[in-house]
C-alpha cells in the first residue's frame, strides 16, 4: 500500500488489554512463579574490575547443609558456546561484578550466605576504564588474542581496539573545499543503563526425563532457548521457555545471564531453582549502553547548503569484543541529511566494564547527538533557524543514504514542518531558559514472526504470537486481526505462546513487532477468512469464490444466505474440524521512522539544576495502529533520552568499581521531573506494510540528547558537549565562563 486508507478498527484508542492486570498487580512477572520444592540460586561476582583467576575453591560451600548445588564455569557442558565467559568467568574477570560461581540453597538468604564460603584467589590487574586510556600506547591489553579487524594493514600486535568501520560517499575533501563555514566539535557520552524496572529473573526446572522448563523475563524466549540449549548441549525440543510478563527491556533483555546457570543448578540439585538479580547486580552485570567519544565536522555554504559531513566515532564494547553498536552508529549518524559528501570512521574499544548490550536504537543516540549538536551550532553560525537549516538539507524519498540504499517515502519533512508550526516552537522563553531542536533516525527491522489464530466455537479468536509484549503489541495484534476479519476488536484476545507450542519468532526488538508480527497476524487472519469462506461455501453447496466475507459475516453471492463467524465456527466439527489460521513470515520492507523533538529547559544559575519546562515529540509512525500506545512509546523514548542527556551515568572508582549501582544514585527521570510530554503522530505510510506501519519504538530516544544538550547550552550561553549535563557540570561551565 502507499496511500492512506480508511480503517474501521485500526487507529482507535481501544481499552488496553494488559492494563488491568498490570495496575492491579495480577500480572505474572518473572519473579512471581514459585514451584513445589523450589530452591534459590545466587551468583558470586568479582570484586575486581580486572584480575586473573588463579583458583576457585568451592568445598566449604558444598559442605554447607543448606546448599544443594555449587557450580563454576567448568560445569557448563559446552565449553565452546558463544557468550559462555559472560555467564561465568573462566580464567579472568573483566569487570566489577563479573559472574564467577553460583550456588543453590534452601533459601535466598542461605544462598547469599554460602557465596561467602567460596574462596577465589585473584591476581589483580590494572583496569582500563575509558576510551582514552584503552587506546593509549601504554594501556594494559585486555585480550592477548584481540587484533583489530578492518584495518587497512593487518595488525601485528594485540590491541584494545576490536574493530574499525568505515563508510563513505562522494568526495569528502571536495565537499569541505566547497564549504564557507565549518564547525567541528568533540562530544562524550557516559555509560548508561536501560533502566528497566523489573530485574532479570527466572525459575527453571530440569526434569529427570530430560525435558526442562524455563520461566523468565525476556525480549526473546526463542533466543533464550537457543543459547541455553547450546551451552548445556540440550536438544531444543526438550527445553520449553515461557516468557513471563515483562517489566521493561529496551534491548537489555535480549541477552541471557541467569538461565543456563539456573538450569545447571537445577540438574545438579534435582530441584526447581529460582534466580533473581538484585538492583546492584542489574546495574553491575547487565546492560549497559556504550560510552562514546565522537567527533563531528560539518561544512556548509553561507546559504545553508551543507557540503560535507565527517565523523570519527569511538564506542566502548565493555569487555567483550563485538558487543558495541558501532555498525549502526556509523550508519545512522548522518541519515537525516541529504548531503553528497559524507565520511565516517568508527572504532570499537574494549574496556573493563560489563559487556555492552543493545539499548533502544543501539548506537544511534550517541552518534546522532554529536551530529545534531553541530547542526544546531552551524545554524547559529549561519544565522539560520535550525529547522530551516534542516529542511534545506533534509533526507527524503530518493536520498542516497551513507549506508547504501535510497530512502523510500519517509516523513522527516512532515515532522520538521510540524515542529516549526507547533505551539512550543512559537512560545517565548524567559531568562535562564533555552530551547533545543533535534532530529532522529532509526532503520527499524523485520525478521521472523509466527502467529496462530485459533477460532473458538463462539466465533471469537485467540491470537497466539511469539513476540513478548513490551509496548502493547497484544492490543495492536487484536486490532489488526479485527481489521482483516472485519470483526470487533473485542472478538479477539492475544497471548504470547511458549517455545513448544508456537513456531519460531525473533525477539521483540528493533521496533519490529507491530510491523513484522503484525504482518504475520494479517496473514493468519487472511488464512482464517479463507477457511471461513470455504466452510460457508460447503454449507451452501457453492464454491468459495461465490462467498463474500463482509462485516464479519459470510454472504452467499449465488443465492440467499448469511452466516456469522459464530455460526461457522460453531458447526466446524461438521464441516471439516477446527478452524485456525497461520502466519509464518520472514518480514521484509521495514521502513525508517524519523522524529523531531523540541526541548525547553530552564537552568538555575546558582546550582546548575535543570528543569524541563516543555517537551514535544513528533514522529512518523507510518500508520498508528493504536495511537495511545504510539504516544506512550514517544513519551517513553523521550523520558529515557532526557535522563541520558541530563542525569544518567555510571560512576566508577579509580580501581574500576561501580559506585552507583542503584536508582538512588543512578538517577533516571521520575514523573515529577518531567512535564507532560506533548506528542504529534505524523503518518506517512510504509508502502511495504498492508496497513502502512513503521516501527516506532526506538527513534524517540535519539533526539532528546541533542535537544536537551542544545537547550541547556542556550540557557547558559555556553556550548556544552559532555553528557550527562548534570548540575555539577553545568555549574562548572557557568563558573568557567564567568
Amino acid at each position, binding site marked *: 500500500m502507499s496511500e492512506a486508507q480508511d480503517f474501521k478498527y485500526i487507529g482507535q484508542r481501544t481499552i488496553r488489554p494488559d492494563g488491568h492486570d498490570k495496575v492491579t498487580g495480577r500480572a505474572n512477572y518473572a519473579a512471581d512463579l514459585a514451584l513445589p520444592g523450589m530452591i534459590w540460586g545466587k551468583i558470586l561476582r568479582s570484586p575486581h574490575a580486572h584480575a586473573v583467576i588463579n583458583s576457585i575453591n568451592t568445598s566449604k560451600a558444598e559442605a554447607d547443609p543448606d546448599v544443594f548445588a555449587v557450580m563454576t564455569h567448568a560445569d557448563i557442558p559446552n565449553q565452546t558456546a558463544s557468550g559462555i565467559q559472560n555467564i561465568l568467568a573462566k580464567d579472568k574477570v573483566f569487570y566489577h561484578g563479573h559472574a564467577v560461581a553460583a550456588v543453590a540453597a534452601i533459601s535466598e538468604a542461605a544462598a547469599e550466605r554460602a557465596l561467602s564460603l567460596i574462596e577465589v584467589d585473584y591476581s589483580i590487574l590494572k583496569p582500563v576504564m575509558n576510551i582514552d586510556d584503552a587506546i593509549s600506547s601504554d594501556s594494559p591489553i585486555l585480550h592477548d588474542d584481540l587484533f583489530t579487524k578492518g584495518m587497512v594493514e593487518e595488525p601485528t600486535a594485540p590491541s584494545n581496539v576490536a574493530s574499525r568501520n568505515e563508510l563513505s560517499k562522494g568526495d569528502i575533501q571536495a565537499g569541505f573545499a566547497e564549504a564557507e563555514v565549518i564547525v567541528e566539535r568533540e562530544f562524550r557520552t557516559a555509560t548508561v543503563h536501560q533502566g528497566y524496572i523489573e530485574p532479570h529473573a527466572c525459575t527453571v526446572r530440569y526434569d529427570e526425563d530430560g525435558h526442562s522448563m524455563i520461566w523468565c523475563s525476556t525480549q526473546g524466549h526463542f533466543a533464550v532457548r537457543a543459547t541455553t540449549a547450546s551451552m548445556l548441549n540440550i536438544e531444543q525440543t526438550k527445553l520449553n521457555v515461557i516468557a513471563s510478563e515483562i517489566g521493561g527491556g529496551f534491548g537489555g533483555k535480549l541477552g541471557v545471564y541467569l538461565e543456563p546457570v539456573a538450569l545447571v543448578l537445577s540438574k545438579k540439585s534435582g530441584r526447581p531453582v529460582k534466580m533473581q538479580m538484585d538492583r546492584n547486580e542489574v546495574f553491575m552485570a547487565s546492560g549497559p549502553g556504550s560510552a562514546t567519544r565522537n567527533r563531528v565536522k560539518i561544512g556548509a555554504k553561507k546559504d545553508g547548503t551543507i557540503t560535507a559531513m565527517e565523523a570519527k566515532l569511538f564506542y566502548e564494547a565493555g569487555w567483550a569484543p563485538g558487543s558495541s553498536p558501532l555498525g549502526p552508529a556509523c550508519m545512522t549518524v548522518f541519515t537525516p541529511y541529504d548531503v553528497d559528501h559524507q565520511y565516517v570512521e568508527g572504532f570499537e574499544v574494549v574496556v573493563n566494564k560489563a559487556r555492552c548490550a543493545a539499548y533502544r536504537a543501539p548506537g544511534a543516540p550517541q552518534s546522532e547527538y554529536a551530529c545534531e549538536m553541530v547542526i544546531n551550532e552551524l545554524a547559529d553560525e549561519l544565522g539560520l533557524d535550525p529547522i530551516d537549516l534542516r529542511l534545506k538539507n533534509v533526507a527524503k524519498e530518493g536520498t542516497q543514504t551513507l549506508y*547504501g540504499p535510497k530512502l523510500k517515502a519517509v516523513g522527516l519533512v512532515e515532522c520538521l514542518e510540524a515542529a516549526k508550526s507547533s505551539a512550543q516552537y512559537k512560545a517565548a522563553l524567559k531568562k535562564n531558559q533555552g530551547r533545543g531542536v533535534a532530529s532522529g533516525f532509526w532503520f527499524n*527491522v523485520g525478521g521472523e514472526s509466527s502467529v496462530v489464530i485459533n477460532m473458538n466455537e463462539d466465533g471469537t479468536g485467540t491470537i497466539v504470537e511469539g513476540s513478548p509484549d513490551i509496548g502493547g503489541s497484544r492490543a495492536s495484534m487484536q486490532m489488526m486481526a479485527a481489521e482483516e476479519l472485519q470483526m470487533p476488536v473485542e472478538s479477539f484476545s492475544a497471548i504470547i505462546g511458549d517455545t513448544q507450542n508456537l513456531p519460531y519468532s525473533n525477539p521483540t526488538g528493533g521496533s519490529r513487532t507491530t510491523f513484522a508480527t503484525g504482518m504475520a497476524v494479517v496473514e493468519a487472519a487472511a488464512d482464517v477468512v479463507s477457511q471461513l469462506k470455504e466452510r460457508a461455501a460447503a454449507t451452501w453447496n457453492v464454491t468459495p469464490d461465490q462467498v463474500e466475507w463482509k462485516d464479519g459475516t459470510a454472504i452467499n453471492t449465488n443465492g440467499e444466505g448469511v452466516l456469522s463467524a459464530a455460526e461457522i465456527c460453531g458447526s466446524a466439527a461438521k464441516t471439516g474440524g477446527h478452524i485456525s489460521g497461520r502466519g509464518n513470515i520472514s518480514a521484509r520492507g521495514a521502513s525508517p521512522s524519523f522524529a523531531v523533538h523540541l526541548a525547553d529547559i530552564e537552568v538555575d544559575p546558582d546550582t546548575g539544576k535543570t528543569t524541563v519546562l516543555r517537551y514535544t515529540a513528533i514522529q512518523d509512525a507510518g500508520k498508528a495502529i493504536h495511537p495511545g500506545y504510539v504516544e506512550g512509546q514517544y513519551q517513553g523514548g523521550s523520558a529515557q533520552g532526557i535522563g541520558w542527556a541530563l542525569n544518567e551515568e555510571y560512576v566508577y572508582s579509580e580501581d574500576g568499581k561501580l559506585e552507583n549501582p542503584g536508582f538512588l544514585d543512578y538517577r533516571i527521570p521520575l514523573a515529577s521531573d518531567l512535564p507532560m510530554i506533548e506528542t504529534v503522530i505524523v503518518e506517512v505510510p510504509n508502502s511495504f506494510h498492508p496497513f502502512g506501519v513503521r516501527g516506532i519504538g526506538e527513534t524517540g530516544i535519539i533526539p532528546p540528547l541533542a535537544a536537551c544538550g542544545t537547550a541547556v547550552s542556550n540557557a547558559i550561553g555556553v556550548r556544552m558537549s559532555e553528557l550527562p549535563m548534570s548540575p555539577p557540570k553545568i555549574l562548572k561551565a557557568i563558573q568557567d565562563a564567568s
Partner: protein
Amino acid sequence: MTSHVIFSSELQKRTGVRATDVRARDYRSLVREITDRYEGLSPADVEDMSVAINGEIIAEPMLEKISPGSEVHFLYRIEGG
C-alpha cells in the same frame, strides 16, 4: 539486462571497485557471480550481511529474486534494542 551492485566501503577494499553490473536471477547467483569475479571477496565476507534490493532491506537473504535493473546494496546486519 543486468542489476547494479554497490559495495560498502569495507567491501570496496576487497573488490577494488565501488560498483559493478551483474547478471543474476537471484541473490545466491549474484553472490556466486561477484565472489567469482573478485578474488579478494569470499562468500564468508557477505554471509553475515543484510542486503537491500531496490531499497527493501532483507535481513537474511538467500532466495530473493533480482529483477533486471535492480539496485543492490550489502549492509551491516541491523539489530535493535
